Structures are given as structure tokens and as C-alpha cells.
């Protein structure tokens, strides 16, 4: 394994390899939202044969830091952060509802901000702090105020969108978008709930905002 060696390479080089590699991976390369500006940020010199992974299928060593723990993995460069969390790391609390960034079920916190893990390639999440629903409660089992508020207000039914709703709601509060019900409704509208627990979600976020600010 040469993970260490790879991890010591400049980030820009890893990214370049990823970009070249994934260009053959088809549609996945189009979903580059978190790194959308990289093409401009990292001017490309003519690629030499040694720094190109010509086949996107070749697993790439990488380290993902999830809930404070590093995970060393070798992953297909086309793999999303969502699938890496679920299938490789075993954190299945993050849910796949559409795989297209349309439903919000896969929302996680990346560097403290809410992000859609189905639109984030795993390889692009290196060096960033990823927080999932499993990392929210304290080690002693005490729930985060948002989790507690979701229980108290019955802000879910089937529970499938719930991890994404809770992480998105924490992001919503941190952004300062949870001051009024109208604002909560607007800034939580990226998270679909087909059971339609929306009124209770708004009530839960309202309660948790106060607890989070105390």
C-alpha cells in the first residue's frame, strides 16, 4: 500500500489526477459542485503519463475523516461520498433518496456546512471534516438538541429523510436562517419529506435553535 505516499502529495496533484480520471467516468464528473471552481484554481500543465490515472476504475487510495476518525480506503474515483460512507465505512445512517441532489436525504456536514453527499465524490472529500448522523450524539448517548427536538415534536414518520433533515437543520441554524418559521420553511426546502412532517419539522427546528444558542 502506498497510501502515505499518496497522501503526502500536493492536493492539487491529487485533484488533477481525479479530474483526468473521472472525465472518462461519464456523468459523475459533471456533479462536481463542491469543487466546481477547481478547473480555474488549479491551472493544468500538460499531463505526463506518470501523474494520470488513465482509468477511472483504478482504485485510488484516500483518507476520509468522518466523525473525527480517519478512514483509509481505496476507492473507485467515481464513488460518491454517500456510497463511501454507506458501503465502505458502514455508516448507513446517511440515506440515498435520489442520487441526484434533488431530495436532501444524503445531507451531511462537511467542514461544518451542510452538503449533499451524493453530489460530492469521495475523493473530493479528503482533508475535510465530515460529520454524519452517527456522530451527532455525545459519547455518553446524550442526544444533540436537534435530535431531541425532532423526537419531542414528532418531526418524522418513516424516518428515512430524518438524518438529512437533522443535519440540514443544524446547518440552517448555524447559517442564521432559523429565526422565523418562514425562514426555516424556505431554507429547509431542499430536504423533501414525503410523509410530509413539515409543520413538525419547523416546530422542532424552532425549539432546537433556542437550545443551540443557549
Amino acid at each position, binding site marked *: 500500500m502506498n497510501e502515505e505516499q499518496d497522501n503526502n502529495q500536493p492536493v492539487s496533484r491529487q485533484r488533477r489526477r481525479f479530474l483526468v480520471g473521472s472525465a472518462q*467516468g*461519464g456523468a459523475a464528473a459533471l456533479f462536481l459542485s463542491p469543487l466546481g471552481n477547481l478547473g480555474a484554481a488549479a491551472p493544468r500543465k500538460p499531463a505526463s503519463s506518470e501523474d494520470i490515472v488513465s482509468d477511472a*476504475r483504478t482504485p485510488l487510495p484516500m483518507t476520509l475523516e468522518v466523525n473525527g476518525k480517519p478512514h483509509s480506503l481505496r476507492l*473507485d474515483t*467515481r*464513488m460518491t461520498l454517500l*456510497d463511501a460512507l454507506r*458501503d465502505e465505512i*458502514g455508516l*448507513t*445512517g*446517511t*440515506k*440515498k*433518496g*435520489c442520487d*441526484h441532489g*434533488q*431530495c436532501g*436525504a444524503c445531507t451531511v456536514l462537511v467542514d461544518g456546512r451542510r452538503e449533499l453527499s451524493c453530489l460530492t465524490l469521495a475523493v473530493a472529500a479528503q482533508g475535510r471534516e465530515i460529520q*454524519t*448522523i*452517527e456522530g451527532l*450524539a455525545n459519547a455518553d448517548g446524550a*442526544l444533540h438538541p436537534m*435530535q431531541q427536538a425532532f*423526537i*419531542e*415534536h*414528532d418531526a*418524522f*414518520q*418513516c*424516518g*428515512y*429523510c*430524518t*438524518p438529512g433533515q*437533522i443535519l440540514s437543520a443544524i446547518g440552517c441554524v448555524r447559517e442564521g436562517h432559523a429565526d*422565523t*418559521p*418562514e425562514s*426555516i*420553511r*424556505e431554507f*429547509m*426546502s*431542499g430536504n*423533501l*419529506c*414525503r*410523509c*410530509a*412532517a*413539515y*409543520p*413538525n*419539522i*419547523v416546530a422542532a427546528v*424552532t425549539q432546537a435553535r433556542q437550545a443551540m444558542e443557549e
Partner: protein
Amino acid sequence: MAEPTSARRQAGMQSAGMKKTNSERASPRYESREKVTGMARYPADMRLPRVAHAYLCTSRIARGTIQAFDLAAAKAVPGVLDILTHETIGDQPRQVPAIYQGGYLSDSFRPLGSAEIAYWGQPIAVVIAETYEIAREAARRIDVTYASQSPPAATIDSPEAVTQPLAPMDIDVGDFDVAYARAPVKIDTRYSTPAQHQNPMELFATQCVWEGDHLTVHEPSQYVNNLKFGLAEQLNIAPERIRVISTYVGGAFGAKGFLTQRTALIAMAARRLGRPVKLVATREQGFTVSGYRAETRHHVQLGANRDGRLTALKHEGWELTSRADTVAMGAVSMTTRLYACPNIVGRVNAVSADRSTPGFMRAPGEMPYAFALETALDELSCELDMDPIELRRVNDTRTEPVGGLPYTSRSLMQCFDSAAAAFGWKDRTRLPGSMRDGDWLVGWGCATAFYPTYAGNSAARVRLSADGRVHVSSATHELGQGAYTMMAQVAAEELGVPVEQVTVSLGDTDLPPAVVAGGSSTTASLAPAIMAACDAIRARLGVTDATSGTVSTAMATSGMGSIEEFAETRAPGLPADSIKGLYRGMATPFGGVHMADRVQFALGAQFVEVRVHARTHEIRVARAVGAFAAGRIINARTAHGQLVGGMIWGIGSALHEQTELDERNASYLNANLADYLLPVNADIHDIEAIMVPEEDSLVNAAGVKGVGEIGVVGVAAAISNAIHHATGRRLRDLPFRIENLMNET
């Protein structure tokens, strides 16, 4: 609007004057902690060692044949393990009839059965590979040559579609033609509703693992025993060799009721490979993996006297179906029985087209048929210049007019009065456009909600231990409706123990069998079975009353370590031999209009305030109040969630949801969650659900009518009626969009 929802909810409950019992208190859901910590394991979350990944290939044409597959490029992708097509799969799975023909499947298509293509989105190949990424890439490299027969019939109005009257559904009472001709006031209108898809947040997933000749299936399901017994027939193996597990379901809404084509394919792929195989169908594929709410058309004719009394009622429906299966919800059986009327005609037609077989979607027939009838009644009230509530009141009845059978209980007008008071209906001014608020045209509308009371044969097992702990189990399902919570509460109440001492197992074919979790029947079916098992435990202890602590005290002093009782209950109205179906995955909900001596319905009243912008024609539901009488409410908290969620579904059915068809090739244009519009948080404002007290000892031993679907019913009509009140424009085709108000008609 800024008032916290929970406060409103409590106020609503109190205003309904509910008596407080152990089971009605609003304790948190049983599985709350699992669901907020990510620990609830849905079927796709089960991690199976060495699992291989499957990707479906689906047909790009709607009618024709596959002439050739070129699999070379797909097979050349490193990591591809197997590719199933009709040419490579052999003679399995066997043909098993659809549920509509007494079988198990959601449609009549044999999975990968031939080169024939009958609808867009039909599974034509399955790629199995080491990873999801490889399977997806290989699937996209499969080259298919089709011989397309075009044009396909896309929908009801397509020239190639075939209309078939369903004579067994005919209803004829009195002489409609004469009465209608003589009626001093008449309504003659047509309505339509579009195709809609359930779109539960959880995708259609299946994981299969063989251990020797035993198969375990992890699949989100509303009926694990349907899967078990149907799959056993498809694979030609003994049912005892199959176990289906579905302990959490990420929403279903009718989409996960019956065996679909995918399950047998994944089971076979796992057997061929000697490895577990996992499929998670894409969101787009989900639009044709299972059934859906088919588009409908309606013709309603009403005749009435000047005092509002109905003298003639005719409701004819047309429902789209596939060419392979004749599926029709036919809810004229309900719309003709709601109001007193001496002369009635009901007709239902199935219209076959080149589409996948439709199925069940929350309030499957009730939503579209109620939209038609309840909008027509509002049109009649306008014609009569009569308050729409009063129109319902003069036609209220304790006896349904088709067979002359009594309603077991009927609290329709109590619902109207309760909702009208909470809504403030008395302040409504009659004339359209008369309640303008600045740039917003305000309209208030109402409609009746109804849902038949069903129950099915079910069994449950209850164990009481010497330490007072209770375990209750049944192969029923948690879809978000609150089955875990309900089961724990019923057992706790029957045995007089705190609900915290009760644990629950469900969603597993190893447990006592239960009916499909559909037709709003889970509580009505399971509560009596749990009650019967608890009765048996009390009988063994010689304890008759279940007041707090009595049973546990008797147990603690009995010298026994535990008592376990199994009970099965046959639902009212079902024949004795129907119990066999419970043990082979064929238990179906029964009741509603099918009882020999009575009809049984939950009823309700929907009120909405609509705001239509005078310039942009944007349509918003500013608030909605529903009042529902559904017999005994086991848990007010989960019931409230069902009712509010249902009402929001009603808003979606009226303003958002439509599966858009490309009529050139009978395909779906918006098979994803960005283009298939469904209500988001910002669409939903003030929603109030009131539970009107009602006791009904006839419907079942628990007195429960069920609340899973009634919340949806009538909302679309109430919105149509409110839009008319706001604008003077009558919209009769769902969904209502800005453009429908822009063109003058």
C-alpha cells in the same frame, strides 16, 4: 401562522374533547431514538459480506421487441460478474399471476420473460458487478437493438388505447334518466386527474443472500408474506426456505405492497453467483418498478330539487391500465353511497394502453373520485346559491342509498361543524372574488373526506415475563404510520403495564403473519389480534381486569417464568376459510362497501383557504383545517401525523403532482424528484387536523377505523372549490397550475 405547530395540535386535540386514556397520550414513537441517530436499519442498510451490486437496464421503447443485445462492451468492463437477459436467464422465474388474478405479483409480466416490450421502463437486463460504479458503467455499455411498434398508446385519449366497460362495477338504482330529465337544477361536468407516483423517499432496494438452499431477502415491503410466498412460486422452492425481513420501511404509500419483477431477478442472480447481491433501483427506474396512481377521467351528472335534495346522481369513471392487467379502483362504489339519492348510476371503464400496470397510491380510488364528486357538489351549491355545508347536510344519510345498508357510524356533519368552527367559515362571503386581500384573491372552500374501514386477518404473539416485561410480535410493517408504537401501546394497555416495558418485533416472515399494511387497516387488523393474545394471557393467570399492575402482580406470584400466547383474528365479514390466506401471503383488507349487512367508513370535512395572486396567478394554500371521525384513536400523536401528512398529500395532488407523459413514446418526462413536483416545506403553511370523537363497536373489536389515507381525500376538491370562490374560475383538471388561470375560458 407563527404559532408553534405543537401548540396548535394540542389545542386541536382538546377542542375535540378526547377522553384521555393510557393509549391516547402522546408519548414519543417507539423507534424514535433509532430514527434520529441513524441506527434504524432499512433493508438497503443491511451489510452483507462479499455483496455484489446489481444495476437494472430498462426499456427505452414502450411497445415492440428486443431484436438483439450486444453485451460485449459491457462484459469487457473489469469487475462485471454476470448479466441477466431473457436470453441468459433460462426458464426461471416461473410465471405467477398478478394479485388481480389471485396471485402475488404487482403485474402479469414474467421478469425477463421474453423479447417482448410492453412498456417504457420495463426491466430488460440486470448487470451484476463487484461495485455499483462498475455495474452502472456496464449497464450503460449494453447495446440494445429494438424493433419498435409505434406509435404506442400513451394515455386514455390516445387513439390506440382500448376502452373496456367493467360491467360488474355497474350501479343502477331507480331511474336516473327520468329523474335527471325532470330535475329543476342540474350539473353535468367532466373532470380529470393525472398519473401520479408515490415516490417514497426510500428507493426500491432488494438484497438477497442464500445460505445453502435458504434464501433471505431484505426488501422494504408492506407485505413480507406476499413476497415470501410469491417468490417461492416464482423460484419453485418451498416457502419455508425463504425469509423476508423489512423491519423499517422508508415510506411506501402503496408502492411496496406486492412483489415486483425485480425481487426474483436479484434472488436468481445471487444463486447463480453464490454471493449476496444488492440492487438499489434509481429514482427514475422507481417510476416503473412498481404500480402508480393511473390517470382518470370523470363524468358527473347531478340533479337536485331547489332545496338541494339530490334526485339523480351519475358518476362514470375511466381509468388507465396496462394491456396486460385490468386494474381499476372503481370508487364509484363509494361516491354513489355517500349521500341520500333515489336515482343513481355508477359506471367504471378501464382504458388499456402501452404502460406499466398501475397500482395503489395512498387513497388510490378515493382521491380522484372524491375530487370529481365533491367538486360537482360545489358546482351544484353555486347553482342553488346554497352554502356547500348545508348542501351536504340536507343530503346526509344514515343509510347508503344503493343497497339500503346502514352506516355502522357516521359523523360527517359533526366533522363539518367542528372544522367550520375552527376555520371560521361563518365569516365567508358568498360571492366569488369578494374576499380580496390586496393583490391576493382569497377563496374558501370545503369538501367531504371519506375512506372505507377495512381490516384483514392477522395474528400476533405476546409474551409476558415474570419481571413484568412484555414482548409483542407480528409480521406487520412500520411504514411511518406508527405500527411499533401502536403495538406496544395496545399490549401495555391490555396487560396494565407501562408502555416502556413493552418491546416489539415486526417486519419479518418468521413472526406470526399479518395482513398487507394497506387500506389504512394496520391498526384495525392488528389491535384485535394483540388484544386476543393478551386476553389469553390474562385467562391463564385468572385475571379479568387489566388495571395497572394487576396482571404483572399475578404473573410475579404465579411461579411461571413467562407466558406466551399466539392469537389469530378473522376480520369482520370474512368467511371462515379466508383464514388460510393468512398463512400463504394472501390476507387482504376487507370491509367498506363489501359487507353483507352494513357499510363502514371513516368520514371527515376538509376546509382550505386559497390565495391566488391577481397578477401572477400563483396559487397558495394559506391554511387548511380538517376534521375527521375515525372511531377509536389508539395514539393521538401518530394519528395526527397521518392526518396532517395526508392533508399535505392532498395539497400536492391539487397543486403539484403530475407524472408528465411524452405521448410520442409513452415515456415519463419527469421521472426524478426535481421535475416531479411534490410539496416541500415552503409550500406548507397552517395545517390543522381535528379528531372528532366517535365510538363504533361494530367495525372491529378495537373500534378502530384507520386514519392512514382519509387525510388525502377531498383536499383537491376543497382547493378547486376555493379557487372558484377566489376567482370565479372553475378548474376541473388536476393539478391546478398558474397557466390554468392565465387562459380565459
